[in-house]
């Protein structure tokens, strides 16, 4: 009796528009399917990044399916991705994360691109105690909230900036001044301030240090100011569209600094395509580059080269760090499930915390705050048509060239 009343009300709720069909009969996932939920920005400002995540996971999943699933505790387990478009809208992202957890009963969440939206989803995952992998969030502010279910495959920004300052100082002993110009947005801003700190502690003189607002259409004013400061090194952070414009304006206004670094510009194909010849000589740091060469890695790709080969065959273009980090996050997850012997959320969470593995993307070992630590991050440079790796020594394939 009570049940029918409840059901009746449920039906009423549906009619009145509160409940979706799927809400009434939640899809209960079978034990032998590992369900990964991913809210993605497939439209809106971050559509390109969302697309990358979608692409690489498809590639990864095809690979897993070809092997008939993953081996857990002696049995085959299938893997499934459930993806939704959150339209680059933070409110929507949180909502969809909740939908994934409660409606689609996902076992684990993958965060979308960017530190900001990762934060929103991390809060939901934490509340439900669902393990979450952040593959494209590197700002420490994401990880310093004491969340226990959040793990990130990118390394902290500071590691990147310190090694960069050291490397450039070694390459160019007369390097004295740096101008820093960053977008006022979570990741670009944190990179800019990390570099400012690293440069100062490295003994460089920061001659210009400004942020620009989201939605800035033109950089003439800043570029003019940078020009009169005449720095040895220009360091700019932002989205690809900002960096293309910034690089062009630096050249147009006759800024002649021998080192120009744009983060994460050259890591993206769109950057070099949008700039043409002007891209030549621009340096950047990135979390991963396809010329790295790890071997004996876990996961479907045992070497970096095999990942590169598969990816280029499928998408006719080079993968960047977003692709690699996201695929690696999936590898980490699988290895944690295997270690845990089940997809039990608590067990997987503990296994993730204990992770210390090598993937095609590099070693992954989560620190106390859940962030991948201790990776040597490559410094890259556009040289002609190619992206060359300058650092670290183990994978370098070119020397730093000054821009003339």
């Amino acid at each position, binding site marked *: 009796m009570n049940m029918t009343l409840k059901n009746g009300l449920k039906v009423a709720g549906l009619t009145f528009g509160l409940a979706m069909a799927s809400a009434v009969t939640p899809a209960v996932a079978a034990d032998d399917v590992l369900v990964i939920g991913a809210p993605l920005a497939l439209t809106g400002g971050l559509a390109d990044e969302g697309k990358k995540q979608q692409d690489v996971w498809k590639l990864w999943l095809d690979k897993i399916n070809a092997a008939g699933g993953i081996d857990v505790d002696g049995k085959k387990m299938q893997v499934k991705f459930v993806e939704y*478009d959150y339209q680059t809208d933070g*409110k929507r992202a949180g*909502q969809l994360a909740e939908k994934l957890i*409660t409606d689609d009963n996902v076992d684990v969440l993958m965060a979308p691109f960017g530190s*900001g939206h990762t934060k929103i989803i991390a809060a939901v995952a934490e*509340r439900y105690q669902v393990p979450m992998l952040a593959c494209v969030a590197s700002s420490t502010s994401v990880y310093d*909230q004491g969340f226990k279910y959040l793990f990130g495959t990118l390394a902290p920004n500071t590691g990147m900036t310190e090694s960069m300052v050291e490397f450039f100082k070694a390459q160019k002993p007369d390097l004295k001044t740096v101008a820093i110009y960053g977008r006022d947005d979570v990741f670009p801003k944190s990179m800019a301030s990390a570099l400012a700190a690293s440069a100062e502690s490295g003994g460089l003189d920061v001659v210009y240090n400004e942020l620009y*607002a*989201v939605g800035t259409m033109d950089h003439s004013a800043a570029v003019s100011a940078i020009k009169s400061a005449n720095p040895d090194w220009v360091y700019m952070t932002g989205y690809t569209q900002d960096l293309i414009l910034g690089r062009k304006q630096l050249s147009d206004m006759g800024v002649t600094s021998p080192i120009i670094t744009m983060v994460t510009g050259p890591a993206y194909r769109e950057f070099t395509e949008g700039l043409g010849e002007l891209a030549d000589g621009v340096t950047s740091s990135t979390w991963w580059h396809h010329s790295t060469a790890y071997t004996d890695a876990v996961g479907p790709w045992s070497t970096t080269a095999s990942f590169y080969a598969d990816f280029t065959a499928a998408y006719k273009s080079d993968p960047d760090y977003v692709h690699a980090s996201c695929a690696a996050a999936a590898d980490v997850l699988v290895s944690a499930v295997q270690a845990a012997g089940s997809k039990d959320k608590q067990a997987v969470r503990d296994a993730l915390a204990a992770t210390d593995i090598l993937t095609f993307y590099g070693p992954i070992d989560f620190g106390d705050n859940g962030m991948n630590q201790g990776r040597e991050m490559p410094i890259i440079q556009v040289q002609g048509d190619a992206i060359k790796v300058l650092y670290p020594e183990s994978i370098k394939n070119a020397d730093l060239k000054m821009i003339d």
Partner: protein
Amino acid sequence: MKQLLCFGAFALWVAMIAATPLLADNYTIRIAISVSMFSVMAVSWNFIGGFTGYPSFSTAAFFGIGCYAGAIAQRNGVPLVLAWMFATILVAVFAALLGAIILRLKGHYFAIGSIAIVELTRLITSSWGSLTGGGDGLNVPLLQGNPQEVAGLVLYVMLGILVLAFVTSVYVDRSRLGFGLKCISQNEDAANMVGVNTTAFKIVAYTLSAVFCGAVGAVYASWVGYIDPTDSFSILLTLKVPVMVLLGGAGTLLGPILGTGVFILLEEIFWANFLEWNRAILGGIIVFLIFFLPNGLLKIQYLQLYAAVSRKLSIGSSKSGAGS
């Protein structure tokens, strides 16, 4: 009679939303929270856009300031409820001061000015890094408790605000204030001439359109745990709320609530089923709304429509009967 129907419908609706934690899963509760939150903003917008006829597009500014004021207060150790109240009051004061300035504008100028307010508040929030964290956004202390409890709490607070906003709108509708606002919407000069202090009335309406948005903004911030300038001061939100009200019927009591419910339902359906095209489909709905439902769902003459349709149907069936 008609009013009883109106209150009855509202009470039923609130009861249904309030029942979701008992009946449905957390995603449904989340939608219920969304529905309540947007309903509050729609009811609020109705004060200025519906009753007074001023095309205000500053909802997102009020919501965003509510988010930030609540978050900042909480981060500085103000207890939860006090932080929410602080945000509400701050937004009210802000709206009153702002209203005194921009309500001198009319029509297109007012529309543009009110959109500019959203952009301006976003830019200021973004560059005032020392207070707001700038582009980094702010982490807000998470509400304690398991997901069900938190969702339930947020839902009931949002619903409480909705009831308050609705009761206010009923009161305004019946009072001198509402009468004066309707005079202003039809002929502002004439309203002035019969003794309506149009400036003061408009400021009150504008403030009413802000205060509840500030409250839900603050609650929203506590709920999601992280806010940033782009999401808090969203142009999309500021445009969506008036569309919801228009969909239901501007200037009516139930219209904003009906419109919000229908809009969010449609949004859910399209989001789930048309991954790449949902934005275009929503755009299509707006275009449809403007052409075919210019007065909203509430003002359709349903009985006439029913009569017309059934007449057509009966003609159709008698024809086919004749043919056989």
